């Protein structure tokens, strides 16, 4: 029973930390220092820095360009990246379609797509959600009908993150409308420059243009861009959800957020006294930090288990649930600490301190954390059924 990292792991953490310090471009570093939000260009800039170092895809096998790290090293790396305030890379190529192609894709697909994902030369987005499907993802309506060696795609996707900048999109579409809804879905790789693809950005409540609605109107997709077998798309999409479950708790992000709360509390005063020395606020921060510590420990347990090659235990199922709650509570408290400054919204620099500049936007947008990727209600349904074995009828 041992919750320490090995000397080698500790040295690795140090190496990662120092490398991030030295490798992060100056303008990104300045923004990271005040916990700024990054735009797509800045994210891709950082992607390329990591790619050059060979660290952009920690969980990819070495044969495809991964660094060959074990679960613990991947965790340490991810935590250090999160703690540094660096831009979060887009997961759609690296964490989602990339691994899917490795597992189920053809050789052509592997050669055509993986190197460009790695290099950041092609940006991917995700075509899963539809306006009328929501949490009931499998009820999707986008259709793909075969026409010789092509499929013809029609339908509408939403929540396609940064589709306005994306080169490719992976799409779940219905290829067989006559079977049970999960059974007739296929997985396509679609060029965003294809005729008939239109992506229109929309704003979130955080006022950020991170998402698009994306329409497919008679889009011709070569059959070789169908991944794996036809009608197996749902299975593939589900397999994807199982990847890297030890990272979904985002403890690094929340650790950084709590540090950010403390820093804001330290720069905020009440009658000359820092809020960090205010017993009421300090206790609120402490309670939240202890809540995070309990999640961190659950995450360690899941990680140690993964490192030893075990199947995820029950502790893993709570990581997303509690992790997103804590992320939201961090921003609730950050706003509370900011007091009247929390009212300000996208003003020029100087109105409120730089570190507080992006908080209100994220406070709004982080509501999505408990909604996307299986809402917390869905997560609870799953735990109730699969882990607790509670009856459904």
């Amino acid at each position: 029973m041992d919750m320490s990292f090995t000397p080698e792991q500790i040295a690795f953490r140090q190496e990662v930390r120092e490398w991030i310090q030295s490798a992060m471009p100056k303008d990104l570093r300045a923004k990271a220092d005040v916990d700024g939000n990054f735009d797509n260009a800045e994210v891709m800039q950082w992607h390329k820095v990591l790619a050059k170092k060979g660290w952009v895809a920690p969980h990819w096998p070495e044969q495809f360009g991964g660094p060959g790290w074990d679960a613990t090293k991947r965790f340490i790396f991810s935590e250090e990246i999160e703690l540094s305030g660096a831009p979060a890379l887009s997961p759609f190529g690296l964490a989602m379609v990339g691994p899917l192609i490795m597992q189920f894709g053809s050789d052509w697909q592997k050669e055509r797509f993986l190197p460009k994902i790695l290099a950041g030369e092609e940006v991917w987005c995700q075509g899963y959600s539809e306006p009328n499907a929501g949490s009931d993802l499998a009820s999707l309506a986008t259709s793909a009908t075969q026409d010789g060696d092509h499929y013809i795609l029609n339908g509408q996707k939403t929540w396609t993150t940064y589709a306005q900048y994306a080169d490719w999109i992976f799409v779940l579409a219905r290829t067989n409308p006559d079977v049970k809804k999960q059974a007739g879905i296929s997985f396509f790789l679609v060029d965003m420059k294809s005729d008939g693809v239109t992506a229109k950005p929309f704003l979130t409540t955080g006022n950020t243009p991170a998402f698009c609605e994306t329409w497919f109107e008679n889009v011709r997709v070569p059959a070789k861009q169908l991944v794996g077998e036809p009608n197996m798309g749902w299975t593939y999409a589900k397999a994807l959800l199982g990847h890297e479950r030890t990272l979904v708790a985002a403890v690094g992000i929340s650790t950084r957020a709590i540090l950010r709360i403390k820093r804001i509390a330290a720069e905020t005063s009440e009658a000359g006294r820092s809020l960090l020395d205010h017993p009421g606020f300090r206790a609120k921060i402490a309670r939240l930090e202890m809540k995070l510590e309990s999640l961190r420990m659950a995450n360690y347990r899941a990680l140690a288990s993964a490192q030893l090659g075990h199947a995820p235990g029950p502790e893993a199922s709570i990581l997303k649930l509690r992790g997103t709650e804590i992320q939201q509570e961090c921003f609730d408290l950050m706003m509370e600490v900011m007091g009247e400054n929390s009212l300000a919204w996208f003003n020029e620099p100087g109105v409120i301190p730089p570190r507080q500049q992006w908080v209100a936007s994220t406070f709004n947008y982080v509501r999505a954390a408990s909604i996307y990727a299986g809402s917390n209600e869905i997560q609870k349904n799953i735990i109730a059924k699969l882990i607790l074995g509670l009856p459904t009828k």
Partner: protein
Amino acid sequence: MNFDLTEDQQLLVKTVQKFCKTESPVERVRKMRDVERGWTPETWAKIGELGWLMVAFPEDAGGLGGSMVDAGLILEQLGKSLVPEPYIASVALGGMAIAKAGSPEQIEQFLAPMLAGETSLALAYSESGARFNPHCIATKAEKTADGYSITGDKTFVLNGHAADRLVVAARTSGEVGDEKGIGLFIVDPAASGVTVQRVTCMDSQNVANIRFEGAKVSGGQVLGEPDGAGPLLDYLVDCGAAATCAEGAGAMQAALAMTREYLVEREQFGTKIGTFQALQHRCVDMFVETELAKGTALMAMIKLDDPDPNERRRAVSAAKWQLAKGGGYVGRQATQLHGGIGVTDEHDIGLYFKRLHILGTLFGDEEYHVRRYMNLPGFVSNVA
């Protein structure tokens, strides 16, 4: 004890409802946020014509002889569609300051045009580091030959970017934090030595940071006793707090109604999502918080003019607490129950989420009011 509305009040509420529906439904917020002012003088003038700016003031101040309770009824309705016009800043803060402490001349000159909807007002009291305490004022008002010279910085002045006149709280003596030594001064924001910086806010109802650098005020611009306005300022901030509670209760009702509607209409997994018990119970919890907030907002309004200021503080802090906790809960759950579209800018529920955060924060957040409440003399008086 009687909380029934009089016939006049019922009529008032109905008129406001109708007005909001036609003149300022919630969609209007979207247009207003592209306007620098955040609201329009035309709509303000209509509100003035309808007499709604007069309800809270005594007849000798040009009002209708009602009270803040009536203003609360109006605010609750305005809150339902997030009407952005500066009602709280002009009526509960600036207007009330002039009505309570102004000379007949000042009332005539500065209050009357606001009551008619021709001008709007603001109360510039909050300062950086004051953390909601109205007596934490460092801005100085120094005596000059024919009046005062004001120097200092005010932050987050509600409607400060648009007001025709500012009521400015400044210190004539004493230390930051003292109740004594505070004066209120009527200042023209266009006067020399006054710099107004508009600050855009999350709910698009903008505010201003205002710098005073030796701004001159004449004797006629001094509101009441130049070193005795501390208790009045405390009262005014409580008026503002109670007003946020009334508006917040309206916003909560609207957010609840919108969520209920969504649960009844949205289908997933082949059924209305409103059939899911976990969501039903969440919606019930929202309903409970909303009903409680309606009641405490009313309580705060009624107790504003209690002869014992501690009774007023007690009621206002309890109401503000209920708004901060309950409104926060309703805003968060309304978003969550709307799912993905709840976090898109194009859906109205996000506007309520934003406004509820701001109402919960203005004039004292949860922590501030807990501390104020627990340090009121009555909190321990009957313990022994």
